[in-house]
C-alpha cells in the first residue's frame, strides 16, 4: 500500500514513459451465425509503462475479452493493438506466442497449472520455451520470491489453492515480462488467501515496474490500481477513471 502511495501519479507515469499498451478502435465479435455476439465495440485505450489499471464491469461486458486482446490471445476484427512497441497486427500466431512468452505474464482465475509438472517445472516452462539456459535456477528463485522455496517439487494437486496461485504468479513473472495481466486472480480463493495474493501481485508490480492489467469484479481490489476502466456492453463506460475517481465516486 505504502509503495503505491509513494509511486508517481498515473498522469506522471503516462507522460514520463512511452505507452506500454495502446489499443485503437478495436472491434471484436465472437461466435458464428445467429450466435455471433459483438463483444468489443470501438475500444481505444492507452496504458502507460508501469501503470496498473483495473478492468471492471458486469459479466459479459467484455473485460476478459479486452484482457485477451491485450495479451495477444484474441485478434480483433478491426483496429490496432500495440504492446511494448510491437504491433500485434504485424505478428502471426507463432510470433504472438513467442512475444507473449517473453513480454506478457498471465495469471488466470483457475491457475491453469500443468498437473503433470512440479511447481518448479511449471514455473520453468515459459523460460524453457524462450530458450533460457538456466531456466530451472531462475524458476527456483522466482518461487522463493513468492514464498514457495520449500515447495519446489510438489505437484499442483499437493498444493493449496493459494499456493497454486502463487506458483501461477511466479510462472507469469519468471520471464520478467513487460506487462502482467491477471484475470480475476482471487476468484477461486477465500478472502484471506485472496488478500495475500493481491498483496504479492502489487508488490511485484511495484518492484519490477511492469505494467499491470487486472480484471476483477471486486471494486476494493480495483481501487488499488492507478486507474480503473469500467466496461459496459463492450464499450468503455465514460472516461477512464483514476484511483482517486473511484475513491470519491
Amino acid at each position, binding site marked *: 500500500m505504502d509503495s503505491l502511495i509513494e509511486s508517481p501519479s498515473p498522469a506522471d507515469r503516462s507522460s514520463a514513459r512511452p505507452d506500454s499498451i495502446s489499443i485503437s478502435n478495436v472491434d471484436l465479435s465472437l461466435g458464428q451465425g445467429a450466435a455471433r455476439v459483438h463483444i468489443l465495440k470501438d475500444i481505444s485505450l492507452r496504458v502507460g509503462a508501469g501503470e496498473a489499471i483495473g478492468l471492471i464491469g458486469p459479466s459479459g461486458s467484455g473485460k476478459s475479452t479486452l484482457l485477451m486482446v491485450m495479451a495477444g490471445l484474441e485478434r480483433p476484427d478491426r483496429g490496432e493493438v500495440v504492446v511494448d512497441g510491437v*504491433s500485434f497486427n504485424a505478428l502471426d500466431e507463432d510470433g504472438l*506466442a513467442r512475444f507473449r512468452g*517473453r513480454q506478457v505474464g498471465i495469471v488466470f482465475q483457475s491457475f491453469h497449472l500443468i498437473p503433470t*509438472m512440479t511447481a518448479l517445472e511449471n514455473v520453468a516452462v515459459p523460460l*524453457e520455451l524462450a*530458450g533460457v539456459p538456466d531456466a530451472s535456477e531462475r524458476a527456483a528463485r522466482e518461487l522463493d520470491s513468492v514464498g514457495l522455496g520449500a515447495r519446489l517439487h510438489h505437484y499442483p494437486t499437493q498444493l493449496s489453492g493459494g499456493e497454486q496461485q502463487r506458483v501461477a504468479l511466479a510462472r507469469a513473472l519468471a520471464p520478467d515480462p513487460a506487462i502482467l495481466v491477471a*484475470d480475476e486472480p482471487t476468484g477461486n480463493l477465500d478472502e484471506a488467501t485472496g488478500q495475500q495474493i493481491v498483496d504479492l501481485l502489487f508488490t511485484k508490480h511495484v518492484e519490477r515496474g511492469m505494467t499491470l492489467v487486472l480484471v476483477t469484479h471486486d471494486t476494493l481490489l480495483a481501487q488499488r490500481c492507478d486507474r480503473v476502466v469500467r466496461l459496459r456492453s463492450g464499450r468503455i463506460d465514460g472516461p477512464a477513471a483514476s484511483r482517486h475517481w473511484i475513491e470519491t465516486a
Partner: protein
Amino acid sequence: MTLALKSVRRRRIPGLPLRFALRELRSGLRGFYVFVACIALGVMAIAGVGSVAASLSDGLAHEGRTLLGGDVSFSLIQREAKADEIAFLREHGSLSVAATLRTMARASDGRLALVELKAVDDAYPMLGAATLDPAMPMRDLLAKHDGASGDVYGAAADPTLLARLDLKVGDRVTVGGATFEIRSAIAAEPDKLAGGLGFGPRFLVSIDGLRATKLLQPGSLVRWIYRVKLPDGATNDRAPAALVDAARATLPQAGWEIRSRDNASPQLARTITRFTQFLTLVGLAALLVGGVGVANAVRSHIDRRRDVIAAFKALGATGRDVFAIYLTQVMLLAMAGALIGAVIGAALPFAIVGAFGHLLPLPVVPALHPGSLALSVVYGLLTALAFGMWPLGRVHDVPVAALFREAVTSEWRRPPLRYLVWMAVVVAVLIAIAIGLAYDKRVAAVFVVASALVFALLRAVAAGMMAVARRLPRPRATMLRLAIANIHRPGALTPSVVLSLGLGLAVLVTITQIDGNLRRQFMAALPAHAPSFYFIDIPSSVSGRFTAFLKETVPHGTVEDVPMLRGRIVAARGVKAEDLKPSQDAEWVLQSDRGLTYTGEVPKGSRVVEGHWWPADYNGPPLVSFEKKLADGLGLKVGDTVVVNVLGRDITATISNMRSVDWQSLGINFVLVFSPNAFRGAPHTHIATLTEPHDRAGGGAVKDAAVVKAVADAFPMVTTVRVREALETVGTVVTNLVLAIRGASAVTLISAILVLGGALAAGHRHRVYDAVILKTLGATRLRLLGAYALEYLMIGAATAMFGVAAGSVAAWLIVTRLMTLSFVWQAGSAAVVVVVALAVTVMLGLAGTLLALNQKPAAVLRNL
C-alpha cells in the same frame, strides 16, 4: 513506433518437446491402453509372421543340402539317365539314384491303396537319416530275400498306409508284379520336402525292387533323381554352380531339371514367400483397424489436455511447439507398443519350435531377424503417425481463450493444411513400403485400394446413418426417441463405432467366407461334372482295352482317355527358358516338367480363342496349342516357336492357336497340346478319367473301392487316383493354411474389439453425464438401459449389414480372382457374424453405462 519482427524470434531448443512430452506422460497411460495394445497387436502379427517365415527360410537354406539329398540334383521324367550322363555325374562326386512314381499297393486281403513309391539305391541317404521304426540299416531294410513263392523285397511304409490297409511290420504287399515285406514304418525322410506334395503315403523300396514290379514301362511316369554329393573339399558356394554350368554345357540335350543345395525346394520357398505376404497383409489389416483406435485415443487425449495445451500457448509455446510436444508423446507411446509387439513377434518362432518342434514337418531355425522386426516397428510407427496426425494437427489451433471461456472448448476444426500434407506423406510412405516390399505387388495394391475404399465407405455409412436419424420423424416412445437422438447428436459415438465395428466385421466376414468356400471346394461336394477317378500310367498298347474295360465295369460312366507324355519347355520364341522373363502367374510353367498331349480335336473343356485348330489328319511340321493366359504370361504369340524336351529329345513346334481352359472342371486339361504327329514313335502312356453320372453320396466309398479293385486286378500297372482322396489331401494342406490365416485374423479381431471398446469408453463421460441428468429428471434405469441398448443395436445392425456386404465382396474377389475358385455365399456364417457383432456391441456399450446408472445422481453430479 513498432519494433522489428526479429525481436520476437528465438532459438529452438533441441530436446524440449521430448522433455515436455515425458513430463506429460507422468499423468499415466489412462486412455492410452487401447492405443498401445492396438499398435502392439498389429506389430506383433507382422513381426511374428516375418520372424517365423525368416526362420523357416533359414531352415530351408540351412538344411538345403539335406533336403536335396546332395549338393546338386538332376531329375529326369520318364527316362533313366544314359551311360554318358551317369559317367559325367560320377566324375564330379558321389552319386545316389532315386526314382519316384505313383502306384497302387495291394495288401494280401486284396485291399488297395495309392502310394507314392520311392526307390533308392544303397547310397541313400547320402545326407541326413531316415527315421525308421524299428530302426535298422537301410541295406537290411531294403534287401531281397528269397521266399517260398519267389523273391521278396524289403520295404518301409508310412504309418498312414499301415493304418489304411490294416498292415503291421512283417506283413506283405504287392506292387505291380513284385512282393514286398514291410520291415519298418518310416516316420521321416530327410529329403521329403524337396519332393513337393504327395497324394499318397510313402512306400520306400530298393531300385531292384522297383525294377521287379515291372512298372518301368516305356513312357511310364517315373521320375529319376540323381543326387551328386561333391567331394568334401568343394564346400564353397561356387562349386555346385560350377557343376550346374558344366552339366548344361556338356549335356545340353539331357532335358533334366537341375537344383542345387541353395535352392532345394524352390516351390516351397516361393509358397512361404507368398503366404508370408498374405499374412503380412492380414497383420497390416490389424494395424489399420488399430489405427482407428490410435486416432480415437489421440483425439480423446487431446480433448482432455486442452487446458494444458492452452496453458502452454499462454506461456509462449507456438502451435508448432505444442504439436511437437504431443507428437513426441504419441510417438513415444507408439514406440512402446511397437517394441512390445516386436518382442512378442520375435519370440514367436522360438515359442513355436519349443511347443511344436517335434511335430513340425518343416525345418524351422528360430533366430532373431532384425530386418523383419525393424520393418514391423516401422509399420507400427507409421500407422500411429498416419492416424494420429489429424487429431494432433488440431492441437496447433487450440485457442488460449479456452482457459477463459468454457464454451469455446467444443469447437473443433480441421487441422492446418501443413499437417494434412504431412499425413498424406506418411500414408504414401506406408503404402509405398507395403506395396514395394510385397512379393505380389498387385495383391498388395488391391489391398491398399480396398482398405481406402472401406474406410471411405464406413465414413459415408456413419454420415448417412446420422443424416437418416436426424430426418426421422420423432417417435412417441421415449426410449426410441432418446436412442435416435443419440445416434445423430453432436459428438455422437456413431462415426467411431461404425468405423471400428465395420472394419472388424469386414475382416471377419472376409475370412469366414473364404474359409467356408475353401472347405466347400476341397472337402464337400465335387464340381457337378468332375470325374471320380484318374487312371495314370496306362500303357498305350492297352489303352483301347482299358477304356473298353472301364465302360463295361461302370456302364453309365463316361470315360475320357488321352495320351500323355512329360516334357520340359527348354526354349520359347528363340529364348532359352532360363532367360525368359515370365509374369509371376506364369513362372510355374517353366519350373518343372509339364504334362503334354497330342490330339486332332479341340480337347473337352477348352475353347480356341486365337488362331486356328489344325485339321484332324494334319501331318506337317509339329504344331502346338498354348493356354492363352500362360502364353500371355510368357510373352508368346501365335506363330512363335516352343521347344520342349521329351525323353531327352528337343522337339520344336510352332504355336498355331491359343485356348482358354476351364481348369475347375477337373477334367483332363493340358497347357500344351500338340498336333497328332508331333511325338510319333515316342514311347508314352495314357491318362484316363471316369466320370459317373449319378450322385455318389450314398455308398460311394464302397463302389469306389470296387472300381479300384477291378482295375488293379485287370491292369496291375495302372495307377488309380480317387479324385475325392486327392482333393482331401489338398484340403488338409489348405486347412493348415486357413488355420494360419485365422490366427493372424484373430489379431485383427482382437484389435477391432479393443478399438470398439475404446471408442465406447471414450463416449462414456458424456454417457454418464446424460444418464445422471436424465435420472435426476425422473428416468428409470430400465428405461435408460433400454434406450442405450436400442441405440447400440441400431448402430450395430446398420454397420453389420455394411460389414457383411464389404466382407462378402472382398471374399468373392479373393476367391474368384486370386484363388480362381468358384464362390458360393455362406449365409449361415454371415448370420452368425452379425449376431455376434450385435451382441458384442450392445454388451460393450452397456458395460460402462451400467456402472454409471447404479450410482446415486448427487455423487456423480458433484464430480461432473
